Structures are given as C-alpha cells and as structure tokens.
C-alpha cells in the first residue's frame, strides 16, 4: 500500500488552484507525500506528458459520451480497490475490477455495490443484483437497484495497446429504475478483469478501462 506519484501528475502541480481535478490530486499528494514517508514530492516539471507510462499502474480510459479518452494513472492503491485519475482530472475507482465510483464527471456514480456481479463473473455467469448511488439536484443520495444477468460470450483476443491477449468475454445485462444497460468484461485466465466497459450514470453512460 503506497501512494504513487508519477511525473505526469507532478507536472500538473502547476495547475493547482486553477480548479483542475488532476492538479488538485497532485498538489495535495505533493504536500502530503512527505508525511507518508514513501515519497518525496518531485519537483514540478513542465513536460510531464513526455514521461513514459508505467504499465503496472496505468490504464487506458475512454468515456465516449464525454469525449474523454487517454491514459489514467493510479493515484491510490488500496489493495482490493484502486483509484485512477484520467484525462482532465476525473477519477474512477475499481474494486476488484468493478467500477464502484467516479468523481469529477458531473453526474458521477457516487458509490456502487457490484459484489454479486463480480461473483457471477467468477462463477462463469449467473444472475446478480447491483446497487448504484447517485447524487440529485437536491443534494440527496438516490439509490437504484438493478437486476442483472451475467453471461459468458466465449474467448476473444483483445488489443491492450502494447500487447494482444486472449481473454474470456462476459456480458452483464442490467435492468431497473427505468433503465437498461449492458456492461462488458474481458477476464484473464485467473479471473482478473483485464478490460471492461461499465455503466456510470445516464448522462455519462459507459466508462471503458483497460490495463496496458
């Protein structure tokens, strides 16, 4: 468990105070890192983008509805859950590969319980109930429950940018609260989620996230 601080994020320290989300995350970590002791705050550098991406801690992310696409960097690794910071500073949290929260997207997914869906993926299919929480215009948390069916779609070769891998594809069809959505997952041989397309909220629609 450690706080990572890549140079790419450090470059964004310069943006701190401008309201940019990535700038915020970076600035805060820069200030707090000395306390944690694992990291010294790196000097701010301008050309952060030139720094190579570490495949162990980075993912490629895309939200088609918002036109956001690029590399996401892990900002916190809590073991079972990891939080990544994507282009423009939004963040998303994967718990064992399942999307459980986004921030900085406006209509964020505030929290989710997708444990049954995860279990169904491990079991090779089945039904699951998931809970999503969103925030409404009155600052109240709105809880939605979805009934889902996870089904195996067989093996596919997926392109992770740097490499092509064989994966098992699963589709999860969910219905509830006046909505239907379909999540897709590509699992490796040990059951880990390599790549996925998961529902966020009505406005944001889907977030695609893949390992590199």
């Amino acid at each position, binding site marked *: 468990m450690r706080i990572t601080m890549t140079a790419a994020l450090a470059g964004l320290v310069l943006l701190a105070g401008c309201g940019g989300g990535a700038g915020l995350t970076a600035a805060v970590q820069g200030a*707090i890192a000395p306390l944690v002791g694992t990291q010294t705050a790196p000097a701010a550098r301008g050309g952060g983008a030139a720094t190579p991406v570490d495949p162990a801690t980075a993912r490629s992310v895309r939200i088609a509805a918002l036109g956001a696409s690029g590399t996401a960097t892990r900002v916190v690794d809590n073991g079972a859950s990891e939080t990544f910071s994507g282009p423009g500073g939004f963040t998303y949290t994967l718990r064992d590969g399942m999307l459980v929260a986004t921030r900085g997207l406006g*209509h964020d997914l505030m929290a*989710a*319980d997708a444990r049954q869906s995860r279990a169904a993926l491990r079991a090779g299919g089945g039904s699951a109930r998931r*809970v999503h929480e969103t925030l409404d215009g009155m*600052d109240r948390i709105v*809880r939605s429950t979805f009934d889902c069916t996870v089904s195996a779609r067989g093996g596919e070769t997926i392109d992770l940018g740097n490499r092509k891998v064989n994966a098992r594809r699963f589709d999860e069809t969910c219905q509830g609260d006046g909505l239907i959505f379909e999540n897709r997952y590509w699992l490796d041989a040990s059951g880990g989620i390599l790549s996925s397309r998961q529902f966020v909220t009505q*406005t944001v629609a889907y977030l695609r996230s893949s390992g590199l």
Partner: protein
Amino acid sequence: MTIRAMRRGGAVSLVALLAAGASGAQTVSDRGLSYTLYGTPGLIEMPSALSARDGQIAATIGGFDGQTRTTFTFQLLPKLSGSFRYSRIEDYSLPGSRGQVDDYFDRSFDLRYRFNDETARMPAFAIGLQDFLGTGAYGAEYLVATKTFGDTLRVSAGLGWGRFGSDGGFDNPLGLISSEFDTRPGLDFGEGGTFEIDQLFRGDAALFGGVEYAPTDKLTLKAEYSSDAYARETELGLIERDTPLNFGAVYRPLPGVQLGASWLHGSELALTGTFLIDPTERPYGPGLDPAPVPVKIRASDARAAQTWNRAALPEAQIGTALQQALAAEGVELSSIQLSDRAVRLRYTNTRYRAEAQAMGRIARMLSLGLPDSIERFTLEPMQRGLPLSAVTLSRSDIEALANTAGGTQALEERRVLDDAGPAQGLAPLPRVDDRFSWGLAPYARITVFDGDAPFQFEAGAQVTASYEITDSLVASGTLRQQLYTNRDDPELIVAEGDEPYPVRRNAALYAKEGTTGIRDLTLAQYGRLAPDVFARATAGYLEEMYGGVSTEVLWKPADSRLGLGAEVNYARQRDFDLGFGFQDYDVVTGHASAYYDFDNRFYGQVDVGRYLAGDWGATFTLDREFENGWSVGGYFTLTDVPFEDYGEGSFDKGIRVTIPLDYVVGQPTRREASSALASLQRDGGAKLRVDGRLYEVVRDGHLNDLEDGWGRFWK
C-alpha cells in the same frame, strides 16, 4: 435528462419513458399545466384547481391593451401556492374614486389551496383568494374543480365571488348561512395592504368554466366562460366586453417557457409569457466539482498502531503540510491539535456551500496523510473566525464507507455532532493565505413599486476590500461609483403630522448625492462567549444610510433547532453624499430574536424590538429552504406606527429569494444571490442593515445545514 440519455447512451435505453416521470406525486395535476393572465395555473383568466410541481416558481408577464400584469407564483407546499403580482393599468382608478390615473400601479397577493389529488373518478378541488391583501382591484375568491380526461382534455368549472362573481351573478349561496354574505361591502382600502377579511366570499356569486385541449405536447388550446364583468374598466371606457367567452392558445417552445395568446371578450388580444424555475432541478445536476483525492485505507496491522514516531514526523511538519494540502481545496487551516490517536482541526471553508462537502474532502486528505495510529478526526468548521461546531468521524468509517453503497447514510448515522471544543490544546498555525482581499464588480439596483416612479434603475461599479487583522477581526469597506440612473431629481422628504421620521424614504437622495461614495466601512469583531454563545460587534459606516455601532449575541447549540439572539445598535444617519459626515438623527435600535427550524424545510424567525424610526414592534419571517441552498420566504413587520401614518401599504412586508450560485454555475462556490421583493420600503418597521448577522454565519455548521448538505460529503 431521459431523452439526452437515450441519445447519448447508445445501449442505455428507457424501459418506459413515463415511468421516470411518474415519480412525482401528482403527475396528473401538473402535467401540461399552463398559466392565466394573472400568472396562476388555470385557463385564460379563470383559475383551475391545479397546482404546479412542489417548489416551482413561475414568473408570468401577461397583458393586453392598457394592462400589464407581472406575477410570481410559488408552489409553497404541494397543495398551497402563493402569488405576488405587480400590475399597471392605464387611465385607471379604483372603484369609488374619482378621476383617472395615467399609469395606475397595483400590487396584489393571492393564495390557492388544493384540497385533493385528482383521481380517475374524482376531480381536484381548490379554493383561492385573489388580491386579498392589496387594494382589491383584482379582488376575487373562488371554488373550482378540475378534471382531466385521457391525455388531451381537461375541464374546469367553478364558483366565483368578487371580480369573478361580477357577470351572470346570482344571490350568494352562502347567504343561507348568514345574511352577511349577501352583500359585498364597498372597499375601504385606506393605505392598502391590509387583509380585507370583511369582503371575502361576500356579495353575488357566479359560475365560470372552461376547457383545455392539448393536441400535442407543445400546444394547448383553451376556451373559457368568464364571470368577470370588467365592471370598473368598462365604466372607465378602458375595455369593451362584448362576450363572456375567451379563446386562447399556449405554446411551449422549450422546457420551462410558455408563450400564450388569447382573444378576450371579443375585443382584446392578450399575450402572456411564463418562465418556470424549479429550485429542485439544478441545471448541472450534482455539480461539476473537480474530483477529490481518494481515501487511503490503512493496512490492518497499521491500524492497530497506538502511537507514531514523532522524531521521524514532527507534529509541526504535519500541521504545515496539511495546511498546504487543504489550501488546494479552498480550506484555510487555522489550528490543529494532535495526539497519538486523534486529531482536531479548525479551519475555514472558503469554497464549498455545504460544510459537509468540505468535511468530506478534509477527511480524505487526513486519511491520506496522517500517521496510521490516528483514528479519530474532529473537524471544527469556522466562519468569520467563529468555530461553528465539531463533527467527529472515525477514520475506519471513512475507509470503510468511501465508494460504498449506503456509505453516505451510514457515515451520517455514525458522525458525532457537538459544539466546537475549547481553543485550549490547539496549536495555531501561521497564516499562509492572503489576509487582504479585494474585488471590483458592477452593481445594479432596481427600485420598483414606488407609486410615483415605479421603475428606478441605478448601475455602477464598486470596489470592495477586506483585511483580516485576525481570523475574527475584520476591516472591510465598499466604495461605490454610480454610472447610470434613470431616477428623477428627488426632493427631501420631511415627516408630516404624525408620520415617523423619514428613516428610509430619502433613499433616493443618497443615490442622487452619493454618486461617488463609501457604501460601508466597518470593523467587525466576532467571538465565542461560551461553547454555544456567539457574539459580534461591528462599528463604522454600517450601511448606506446609517453608521454607528452594532452589537449582537446569539445562543445556538450546534444540534438545536432553536436559536435565541439579541441585538442592540446605536445608529446615526449619514450624510446624503456618502462621505464621512453624519446628520442629526440618531436612534438606539435593537431586537430580541428567536429562530426556529421546523424540521420540514421551513425556518421561522421572530424579531421583537425597536426599529429605526424609534417605533416598537415585531417582524415575522418564514422561509422555505431547499436542501440545495435555495430559499424562498416572506416577512411582515407590525409596529406601533398606525397604518395611516405608515402610508402606502400600511405596514412593511415582502418576499425574498436566495439562489446559491453553485446552482447556476455548477462549480463549487459559497456565493449566493439574494433578492428581496419588498413592498415599498417606508419608515415604519425599518431595520438597520448590518452585514454578517450571527445566525446566518453560524448555521452553516449546525445540524440542519449539515444534514441538508450531507449528500455531498463524498462528492
């Protein structure tokens, strides 16, 4: 939102389009609702029994040749609505008066109560009072029923009194109860503005009714039989009333906008425009807040630590680093108390409207940066140097409940709210943020309802500056330069007869002579006398018209719904040129106040005391506040100044609206826009205007405001 999702979401489809809309309690009633020329839900001029969606505000401008009506209708409660109307009638005068006024201006208030929700068999029924508080120029009462048939047809029928009983009238059926109902007494409106209870439901009654037909979602056609004879207007030759039948159409080009045209009484073309604002529908939904830092979860063995190594990580370093980190969130950390297992922070949140949201962001940073042994976080938000309350959270809860369904509510149940602790034990941190701040901004002032000059406009620029000598001692001032006004040259008003001293009526002279001037220049000290007792003293040029000293004490425990306060001021009238000089008039004014939070989103306030003109009395205020910071309310003041001496309007009253700016821009900000639509401000019941009164400062960190904003904790 649903439609956008369908377009954008690809595979995200809707099971049933209407299912989402069915969440509102009374969809039948508010679907396809349109507004009358009086700005109330209904037909063309005749009302219906419908209500708008709860909390909705409808601004309607309607008019025909010689008459313009501007109305704000607020759905106070699901079944109760109130309207405030300002109208202009050319060449009019009230019944019983002689002559005609070129431009007659009139204010009126309505109330409508709907008894029941419409069902498949049962129509909705409502009772209404129109213009019951003003001059009665539009005075009418009604009982009305409305029934919707299928998706396209709606029929309303009712019984009207007053104006709505003036055509085709018959003996009042209420005459069976008492003969007093048989005749409507002549209107003796005096100075206007009083409750004309001896008129209500008196005199002849008449039937009215009409049909609405909606061929498409965007268009509604209407026809009505009007029971309004337009008696006075016809008598004055202002309108020809050839028929009781009116025909009209309403078109909705955009959500929230309605444009209407109608043909009245076979002789007049009338136009209306209605703009709907729904405080519950925030344009940016949850808001575009930048992402916070994530929570860091300690490993289970680290969690067991009982202490941390202060040699490796000195307390001073933690304070300085946290201060720097929190600054990125607009949080100014003032002091910190650290122990092996707990931390206590005092800070000022300058960015987030909801203190709960600032707390969420601070808690995350603490989870990220503090030694593992620290388990308890106590957050003490401050405003103007006053510690408002203390919220204690467990670090393990923060770790367990972040990004967890049900986590917001679970954390709310586990947090401990208390009064802020003592200053003792806190290590102050040197200030790093700027003590000096300033801003240049345009300003505009609109004065309406003045009988002689109903629309006065003034605009210019102002520089505001403040310097925080300490957290709780602040010097601030505003310098104002007027650039434009349409105001005529005002004359000095002096008290005549028993009138109160003109404490407010010479406002126009300040605008005329104080084109460049000091709007305010004060030194304010805040303090806490006991854990739940707050105090303020402000001295200097308190407001445009008065300078002096203002002192205030407030008792308000963090978890109490009741607050009690007292304020004593010495005020002296300033020179009209807004310079440093004073005039001879001075007064000791002040109030004892009680504030109560009714737990159903209504806040009440009663102030009893002595007003600026030396008059004694009380002010009653009731606001409906929404979780997202909107507030709509009304107030009235009764003092020992008799109605005839008070002048037009009889006593001070008005409505007020506060709109949080984050509602509008979507970004986090603590700014808000407040506007009071007061009836004409006169001299009775006038209060000193002092910036930063304690209740508004303190309540942000207290139980109800915390509950309202708690949904934003994890945002």
